[in-house]
C-alpha cells in the first residue's frame, strides 16, 4: 500500500489543470484494458468460425476448428482480469447470486455463462464428438480417457447421429452469432452507458466494439493459422489466407468508418467536453491513439490489405507472389492486433485521464508488480495461448487429423 500511495503522490505532481481530488487515482487500469481486448478476440474468432458454418464460406474451412478452440481458450481467461481487478475477488460470486438487475455489469455472469455453456462448449462438443469416439477407440492411456469423457458416453457413429451432430452444430452457430454480438456489444455497453463520462457515453461504442472485435478476431486467427502451419511444416492454403485477408479488410473498413463517424460527430457537435478531449488527444493519448491506433493499427493495414488482398476482385490490385502476400498478411495482422489493443487502451484509460470537471488531465502509471500490475496483464495475455496449446493437443483442429481418424491423430 505504501508504494501505491507513493505512486499516487507522483501522479498528483503530474496532473495538469484542475481534477477532482478523488480522481488522482485511476480506477480501471491495465487489467480492464485486457478484459475487452480478450473478449473481443473471443467474439471475433467465433464470428469467423460462423462464416464457414452458416454462410458457407468454404475457403476459411481450414481455420474453422482452430477458431472455435481459440475462442474457447480466450473465453476461459476473459473473466480473470476482471476478477483480479476487484477490491474483493472473494465476493465476486455475489454477481451471480444477488445481481442488481438495473446494472449493466451485473449481467456479465449471465452473458458469459450463456456464451460459454450454451454456445461454445456445445458447438465444440457436437463438432468433435464423432472424431473423439473414433480417436478413443484407437488410443490408450490418458488420451483415451480424455476423449471418452469428452464423448459423454454418446458413442453412436451412425449416419443419422453424425448428421444430427452437423445440423445441431449449425443451429448452435446460428444462435451463436447474435450471442457473440451480445457478448461484445454488451462489453461496449458497460462503457457506452456511463452518462457521467463524455468520452464513453456514446451509442456507437457497442457497435464500434463489435466491429473492432471482428477485426481483432480475424487477425488473430490469421496469425495463428500461419504460425501453426509453419511449425507443423504444412503448406498454407493461400485461398484461405486470401479470404481471411479480404474479410479483414472489409471488417477494418467498417470499423474505421464507425470510429471516424464517432470522431467527426464529436468534433462537429463540439459540446463542452470538446476542449479537454482535444487536449487529451493531442497530449496524453497522441502516441496510443493517433500513432498506434489510427496510423499503424488501421491506415497502414488498410492500405496493405487493399492493395495486396483480393478484396475487390478475384485478383488483387497488385499481384504479389504467395510468399510476399503471406508476409504482408502476417504484418498487417500483427499491426492490427497492436492497433486494437491501443483502441481498448484509449477507450478505458482515455476515459479516465481527463477530469469530469472538464478542467484537467491526470496520468496513468502502470505498476509492474501486484495483482493489477503489468506482469499480471502479460500473464493473462499469454495464458490463453497455453490453454489453446493444451486444447489443440487433445482436440487437434487440423483437417488431416479429422480425416485420418483411425490412425494416431497428427497433432
Amino acid at each position, binding site marked *: 500500500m505504501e508504494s*501505491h*500511495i507513493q505512486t499516487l503522490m507522483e501522479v498528483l505532481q503530474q496532473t495538469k489543470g484542475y481534477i477532482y481530488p*478523488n480522481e488522482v487515482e485511476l480506477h480501471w487500469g491495465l487489467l480492464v484494458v485486457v478484459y475487452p481486448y480478450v473478449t473481443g478476440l473471443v467474439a471475433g474468432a467465433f464470428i469467423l468460425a460462423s462464416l464457414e458454418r452458416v454462410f458457407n464460406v468454404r475457403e476459411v474451412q481450414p481455420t474453422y476448428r482452430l477458431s472455435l478452440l481459440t475462442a474457447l481458450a480466450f473465453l476461459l481467461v476473459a473473466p480473470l482480469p476482471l476478477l483480479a*481487478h476487484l*477490491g474483493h475477488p472473494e465476493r465476486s460470486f455475489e454477481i451471480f447470486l*444477488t*445481481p442488481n438487475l*438495473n446494472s449493466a*455489469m451485473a449481467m456479465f455472469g449471465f*452473458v458469459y455463462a450463456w456464451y460459454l455453456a450454451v454456445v461454445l462448449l456445445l458447438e465444440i462438443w457436437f463438432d468433435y464428438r464423432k472424431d473423439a469416439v473414433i480417436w478413443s477407440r484407437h488410443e490408450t492411456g490418458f488420451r483415451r480417457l480424455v476423449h471418452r469423457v469428452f464423448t459423454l458416453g454418446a458413442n453412436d457413429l451412425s449416419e443419422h447421429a453424425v448428421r444430427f451432430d452437423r445440423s445441431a452444430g449449425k443451429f448452435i452457430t446460428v444462435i451463436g452469432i447474435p450471442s457473440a454480438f451480445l457478448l461484445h456489444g454488451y462489453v461496449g455497453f458497460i462503457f457506452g452507458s456511463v452518462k457521467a463520462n463524455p468520452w464513453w457515453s456514446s451509442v456507437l461504442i457497442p457497435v464500434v466494439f463489435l466491429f473492432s472485435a471482428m477485426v481483432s478476431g480475424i487477425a488473430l486467427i490469421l496469425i495463428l493459422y500461419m504460425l501453426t502451419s509453419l511449425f507443423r511444416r504444412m503448406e498454407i492454403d493461400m485461398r484461405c489466407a486470401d479470404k481471411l485477408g479480404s474479410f479483414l479488410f472489409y471488417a477494418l473498413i467498417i470499423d474505421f468508418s464507425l470510429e471516424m463517424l464517432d470522431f467527426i460527430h464529436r468534433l462537429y457537435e463540439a459540446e463542452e467536453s470538446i476542449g479537454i478531449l482535444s487536449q487529451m488527444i493531442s497530449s496524453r493519448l497522441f502516441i496510443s491513439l493517433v500513432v498506434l491506433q489510427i496510423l499503424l493499427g488501421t491506415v497502414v493495414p488498410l492500405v496493405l490489405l487493399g492493395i495486396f488482398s483480393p478484396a475487390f476482385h478475384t485478383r488483387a490490385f497488385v499481384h504479389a507472389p504467395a510468399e510476399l502476400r503471406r508476409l504482408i498478411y502476417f504484418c498487417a495482422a500483427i499491426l492490427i492486433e497492436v492497433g486494437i489493443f491501443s483502441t481498448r487502451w484509449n477507450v478505458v484509460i482515455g476515459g479516465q485521464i481527463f477530469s469530469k470537471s472538464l478542467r484537467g488531465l491526470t496520468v496513468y502509471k502502470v505498476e509492474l508488480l501486484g495483482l493489477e500490475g503489468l506482469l499480471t496483464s502479460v500473464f493473462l495475455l499469454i495464458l490463453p495461448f497455453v490453454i489453446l496449446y493444451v486444447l489443440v493437443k487433445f482436440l487437434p483442429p487440423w483437417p488431416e487429423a479429422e480425416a485420418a481418424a483411425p490412425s494416431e491423430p497428427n497433432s
Partner: protein
Amino acid sequence: MKGPESETMPDSRATGGGANQPVDRREFLSRSLPAGWVLLAAFTGCGGEPSAPAGGSEASAREAGSAPDSGSQAPASEVETSAARDPLAGYDPSQHKYAMAIDVDRCIGCGRCVEACKTENDVPREPFYFRTWIERYVIQRNGNTVVTSPNGGISGFPPVEEAEILRTFFVPKLCNHCDHPPCVQVCPVGATFKTEDGVVLVDHDYCIGCRYCIQACPYGARFLHPVTRTAEKCTFCYHRLVKGLVPACVEMCPTQARIFGELNARSSPLARFQRMHKIQTLKSHLNTEPKVLYANLDGEVS
C-alpha cells in the same frame, strides 16, 4: 470516531423494508446458500433463463427483509430484545427526506468542514481521498478560470497569485445524494443503495470493489478506501442523523454556509433557505436530481 463499517450497516437495518437491502439479502443468503448454489449450478449447466434464480433471490430477500419490521412473524419478546440491542431501533426513515443546501457566498474556504469530515468518518489523510472538499475559483478579466483545491482545501488556501481578477469564490463539494443516483444504478450487486430517507450509502461488507460506481459518479465524489478496498463516499454522517444530529461538516462550518435539514418539511432551516434563495444543482442536465442545493452558484462551476 466511527469506522465506515459500523456506520452504514446498522443504518441499512434500521431502514427496514427498502427495495435494496443488502444486509437482509445477505441474511437471507446465509440461510439459503445451498439452495442458491443448486440454482446457480442448474443455471450454468443448462443455460436457462438468466434472471430466474436472481429474481427469485431478490424477491425472497425482500420478503426476508420486511419480516423484522412488520414484526408479524417474530415473537414479541424477541422483537423487544433486538430493539434493546439496537440503539437505532427508534429511528423511522420514512419520516425523513434529507438534503443539504450550500450558500456559496458564505463559504470562506477555511477547510473546517473537510477536517471535520475526515476526523468524524476516519477518512484516510492522503490528499486523494475526500468525502467533501472545497474548490476555489479565480476568474480573471481575460475570461480565464483557475480552479484549485490544495489537499481538498483542508488547510485553507494560499493567497491568490493570479493577476487581473474579476471575481473569486469558494465552492464546497460532496456527494449529491442524487434522487436518481447513477452509482446505485450501476452497482452490480446492490451494495450501493438509496435509503428510504434519501441518503445514498455503501454496504462495505457487500461491496466487491469493482469501482463501476466511481466511474458512474459525475461529481467525483467517490473513492476506493485503500484499506477496506471498497467504495467510499459521503453518508451525510448517517450515524449522526439517526441520533438527531446534523452532519459534522454542517456542525463545524463557522459561517453556516452549509444548511442541513428536511427537504419536505414546511418549516425548517432548509425550507426557509429554499424560499429565500434561487437554487441550482450541479450538472442538472444529467438528470441525477441532486439533493445538494446551491445558492449563488456561478455558471463556471462544474
